[in-house]
């Protein structure tokens, strides 16, 4: 009944409405912190217990792709922040532009992630019966491994299972496999959930973009852009932690 323009019925003023939406999103992000937090805790404890296997797991990840994704994601945070800014200062065309840029970057991130997942699949690093940390060193050609890189990886894995190779073929490998598999379970759970958040974010962006074509967001009303921005930046922050924890555990070896 009180719908004037963008004001919803339960509110008295636009200010109140904006205030409410922002607080709502912040509180939602708190729940997200604890949601991911449970997983970080699981990660911490397992990593502490099996540092060798986790180190090997981390080193099989492709640092270039991970680094690229970090850059992409931070860039998308920048464009998102700029979209909010454009709305605040009333540059309505640019709002759309920045939102589209953010969406493209987000899509690129997911694309790279898909490539990485595919790679893990090819390298037999998906937890399950086909899981095998040594697949790549045993089949270097199918992993594109060669030269020094191959040597390094082989040395690393060999170090971990050397004893077993001499005396007791088969047993050290099993443990290493089990613990590396734990690493990859966490890797997929964490990056998978992160990617799921990206997908949801992309959906929100699509919805914003559709609306921004009509020039809906300006200095007077930009709550949806701002609130989606908060979410997007949060997803960025999760990655900021995932990247060193998953990719950089044991690089100095």
């Amino acid at each position, binding site marked *: 009944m009180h719908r004037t323009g963008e004001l919803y019925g339960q509110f008295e003023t636009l200010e109140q409405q904006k205030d409410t939406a922002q607080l709502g999103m912040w509180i939602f992000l708190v729940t997200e912190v604890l949601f991911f937090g449970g997983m970080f805790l699981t990660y911490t404890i397992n990593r502490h*217990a*099996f*540092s*060798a296997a986790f180190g090997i797991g981390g080193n099989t990840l492709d640092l270039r792709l991970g680094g690229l994704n970090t850059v992409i994601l931070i860039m998308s945070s920048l464009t998102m922040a700029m979209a909010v800014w454009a709305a605040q200062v009333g540059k309505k065309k640019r709002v759309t532009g920045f939102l589209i840029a953010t969406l493209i970057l987000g899509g690129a991130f997911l694309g790279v992630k898909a490539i990485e997942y595919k790679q893990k699949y090819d390298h037999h690093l998906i937890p399950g019966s086909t899981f095998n940390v040594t697949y790549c060193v045993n089949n270097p050609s199918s992993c594109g491994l060669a030269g020094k890189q191959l040597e390094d990886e082989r040395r690393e894995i060999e170090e*971990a*299972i*050397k*004893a*077993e190779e001499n*005396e*007791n073929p088969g*047993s*050290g490998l*099993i*443990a*290493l496999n*089990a613990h590396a598999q734990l690493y990859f379970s966490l890797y997929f759970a964490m990056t998978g959930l992160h990617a799921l958040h990206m997908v949801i974010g992309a959906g929100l962006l699509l919805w914003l973009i559709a609306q921004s074509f009509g020039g809906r967001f300006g200095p007077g009303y930009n709550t949806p852009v701002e609130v989606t921005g908060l979410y997007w930046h949060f997803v960025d922050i999760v990655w900021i932690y995932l990247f060193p924890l998953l990719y950089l555990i044991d690089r100095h070896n």
Partner: protein
Amino acid sequence: MQSQLPLYPEQASNFAPQVDALMVFIIAICVFFAVAVTLAIIFFLYKFRRKSTGEIGVAIHGDMRLESAWIVVPLVLALAMFAWGAVVYVDFRRAPTDTLDIYVIGKQWMWKLQQPNGQREINELHVPVGQNVRLIMGSEDVIHDFSVPAFRVKMDVVPGRYNTLWFRPTKTGKFHFYCSQYCGTNHAIMGGWVTVMEPDEYTAWLSGSSGTIANPVLAGEKLFAERSCLACHASDGRGRGPSLNGFFGGKVKLADGSTVTADEEYIRESLFNPSAKIVAGYQPLMPSYQGQLTEEQTLDLISYVKSLQAEPAPSTGAGATPSQGTQTTGKK
């Protein structure tokens, strides 16, 4: 044994009187508060019942002194309950040094127990009265819990690690033990009896029972050779791994500078997660036996390692049965 409606189970261990005393103490405090509040409510309900329809109460908004009083008094009592409870618990978690060690393995839905001499029992436990007993417990599948109400003791039995529990029976007789952690279909019948005997009866029982005692030390020795432990852990200390002679119960210096006590849990960890604690001066070469050994084999190996005395190295496992009582002394 007792009346039709007993209020507490028999007191048959050193912990039973302690726990019961604690119970009485807390009951006293709680009954005091419960009665005080209830009487106050009943009195007010009667005294201040509504006497006419339009009547309202007196507007009293609060009283700082009262509020502080009923914060401080319960707080003090609460701390007292905490402290007493903590004393009993710490005692319970720290077994004395002179225990009779019994291995317990829980699996869906039975208990396998093993006396120090290798005598095995299923869902039965025989112990001598007056002797400190320690149960070293592992599980082959899910979490179980070994519980003896008459002793007022209980401890979860968690797969992947050993938990211990100790008590000193003070009364001969037969007492129920239960599985107290829900573990699946037959959780309710995963129990049995503890038989507490006079020490000489116990000794007689140990020697008198069936001739084919599976000697864990012998079995462990066999495994030690079969699983090529021997290849690295030569008794002269010149193998790739440290010599294990006389190592049990002492302190081990680790590569990162810390020390650990060589106990059952540590051996277990060395077997399943050898890279977690590296002995100073050695390389992390030892392979993990995760998934290679059953719980029983693990216990056999541990028994064997424990039996390895510093001097002289035992020639065969025969006669290396751990002496009852003091073999697990913590200090060297």
